[in-house]
């Protein structure tokens, strides 16, 4: 069920320049079951900025009724959000969409998780859930530069973790695909979230195994009513809505 709730800020901190980790508490968390879903966040109390901001769920904790998101404060709304303090609340609609299928990989098998920049966060909950069921995880995470890297230690605690930076200041120089070409082909499936060029590169080079992609698009409603976020899914007028059919799709299901 989708819930709208005014949630309490439990903690809010800057992990890297302009990258914030926000943990919220409330009953809405009871509805969170899959990794890779997102929430729609109101960043102000008034009419401006008007629209909610879609942000992935990075991790959730049923026991504490809390969840965490990690976001980049880039534009008007996310900058306002970044000023919220621990005495305040945030208006959240969610959980929204369909996330990553944890059951695509069996216990004892290996999964490859590939994230780019601000697409990294939803892979964290996924990795935790895969590890909990006995799956071996390998993480390949791409960032612009060393100072932009976040959650390296958290991912490393769950499994093998490789970092790529575009400028080579940390880990492998280049893109996630530069790390992937040297990895042993032992994994059963690939889960990924990141910028469209990265997803396209994965689709072009790694479609021989089950490949799951989490997509982004500008949204209106976030619940499937306004047709803002559609993408083609084949011939003619067939389509999928990223907000309610996705944001995660199996490669080939939609046209990137």
């Amino acid at each position, binding site marked *: 069920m989708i819930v709208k709730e005014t949630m309490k800020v439990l903690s809010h901190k800057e992990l890297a320049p302009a990258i914030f980790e926000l943990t919220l508490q409330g009953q809405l968390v009871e509805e969170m079951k899959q990794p890779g879903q997102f929430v729609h966040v*109101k960043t102000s109390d008034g009419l401006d900025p008007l629209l909610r901001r879609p942000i992935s769920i990075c991790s959730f904790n049923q026991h504490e009724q809390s969840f965490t998101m990690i976001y980049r404060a880039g534009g008007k709304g996310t900058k306002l959000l970044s000023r919220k303090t621990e005495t305040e609340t945030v208006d959240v*609609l969610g959980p929204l969409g369909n996330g990553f299928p944890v059951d695509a990989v069996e216990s004892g098998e290996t999964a490859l998780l590939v994230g780019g920049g601000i697409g990294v966060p939803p892979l964290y909950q996924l990795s935790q859930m895969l590890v909990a069921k006995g799956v071996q995880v390998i993480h390949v995470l791409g960032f612009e530069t060393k100072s932009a890297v976040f959650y390296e230690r958290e991912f490393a605690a769950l499994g093998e973790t490789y970092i790529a930076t575009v400028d080579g200041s940390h880990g492998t120089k280049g893109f996630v695909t530069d790390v992937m070409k040297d990895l042993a082909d032992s994994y059963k499936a690939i889960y990924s979230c990141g910028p469209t060029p990265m997803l396209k590169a994965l689709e072009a080079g790694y479609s021989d195994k089950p490949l799951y992609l989490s997509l982004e698009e*500008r949204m209106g409603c976030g*619940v499937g009513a*306004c047709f*803002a976020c559609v993408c083609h899914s084949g011939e003619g007028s067939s389509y999928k809505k990223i907000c309610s059919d996705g944001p995660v799709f199996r490669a080939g299901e939609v046209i990137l």
Partner: protein
Amino acid sequence: MSKLSIELPGLSLKNPIIPASGCFGFGREYSQFYDLSKLGAIMIKATTPEPRFGNPTPRVAETDAGMLNAIGLQNPGLKKVISEELTWLSNHDVPIIANIAGSQIEDYVKVAREISQASNVHALELNISCPNVKEGGITFGTDPEVAKKVTKAVKDVSSVPVYVKLSPNVTNIVEMAKAVEAGGADGLTMINTLVGMRLHLKTGKPIIANRTGGLSGPAIKPVALRMIYEVSQQTSLPIIGMGGITNAEDVIEFFYAGASAVAVGTANFVDPFVCPTIIDELPALLDELGFDHISQCTGRSWK
């Protein structure tokens, strides 16, 4: 609830709150949040004879207290709307206002003839004001003679009353209203979106793939109020007002301008519960303002 009931051509409304076309799909998504029979009526997404995919993405861009959209009338087409969407909606006790669109007069006539037969469609809303399609849409809504002609053609085949949705992208809105009144319209709905643009700070190019989009939300409320104020004094047609409504106070302001019911669009995206919330808040607000019935507010600005 009798404080809120409204009678309009073809429509016996429990209350005057109607989700606006294109902002509520065919109701399914919002039925997750509340019982749709709470609403006065529902204006469904524009329906065209054939399925349409619409425009490339990005299709929306935020603006100060508003948004631009260029969806491009994406819809599953007349056949599916009747067999699937209207059938599903018929399980709810709520009248449907079918928003119809097309590229040529024959399209409007075809959709009007067939969709007006559906038992839960109590009125048509003739969308001659969509700014986001190359043919049809707004071209029908900016030339009074063409608007009159398409209104008449639809009236001739429709088995339910016809409301014409006016475009604000004209110099003389009263002239347009009078033209469709002469064409036989039973009512007016206004306003549709205003053509606008946003540019990307880094690329310098339009954010919306279609380049321009229709502006909606609180930013357009003053324009809508002014147009309803002018038109309601110059025609005898009832007006369903819309444009930037987010709360019960806004609804009263639209009634003061001359509206007899209202539609709520963009605000559904911000708060999916906005329509039932407004419906719940209106009676107390009417009490506070000293009205026994909401219809007493209509046209107060000029009466």
